[in-house]
């Protein structure tokens, strides 16, 4: 675990750069993380997915995988990969300040 400065704010991150404490998250942190991941601007659509991930995580304690994300977020699998080419579920979880989805599917 290390401390990292993101959007002018000190946050705790794990070895892969995921926030350790989801309450340290805000949209500015998300934007700063997105830049590091090669996404220059977070569009409304990106934010829709990120916020959906967060609300699912808060409600259920785990992040949805790509399949349920495609079924329930209102954004199709195809579009999810256009928004987050480097793995939508993993990346949206990261940018949403929650831990990554666990599971094989």
């Amino acid at each position: 675990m290390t401390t990292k400065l993101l959007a002018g704010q000190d946050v705790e991150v794990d070895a892969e750069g995921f926030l350790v404490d989801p309450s340290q998250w805000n949209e500015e942190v998300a934007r700063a993380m997105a830049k590091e991941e090669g996404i220059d601007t977070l569009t409304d659509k990106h934010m829709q997915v990120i916020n959906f991930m967060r609300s699912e995580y808060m409600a259920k304690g785990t992040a949805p995988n790509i399949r349920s994300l495609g079924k329930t977020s209102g954004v199709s699998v195809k579009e999810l990969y256009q928004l987050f080419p480097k793995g939508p579920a993993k990346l949206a979880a990261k940018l949403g300040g929650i831990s990554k989805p666990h599971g094989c599917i």
Partner: protein
Amino acid sequence: MSEPIEKVSIIISKGSLEGVYPGLIMANGARAEGIDANLFFTFFGMDAIHKQRWGNMKVATVGNPGLHIPTIIGIIPGMSAIATKMMSSKIKKLDFPTIPEFVEMIADTGAGIYACLASADLFGFTKDDLVDQVQGIITVGEFYEKAAGGPIIFT
């Protein structure tokens, strides 16, 4: 730290339910991690991308010691259907996708989906027999070109 994997090419050669799922899980899992993936269906694995067959894949009850039923039982007509039904209901309970849904989803992730030319010739399949997600019937040489730079996994 080792270099991360950037691309994988997975060959699916078996025509049973348990022969097809592992390759699909690996391809989908690769894409979920941001790794490029190609799927190459060959021999009986082609059933998983065949319009009339991809929804009817069965568990092999003969020559499958992992199933833990005696071969003599496995040959009884209907055994494969029973084993398939049992596994399918487990798959459904775990909320795993069916093979058609899985192949559709993997295509949507941007993975390459290809059929083997030699097998298509052998079975007399044309592009019209195969599902729309198949991007082409390609030669082994073309497969190696597409696989260049990443590991190849044979299942």
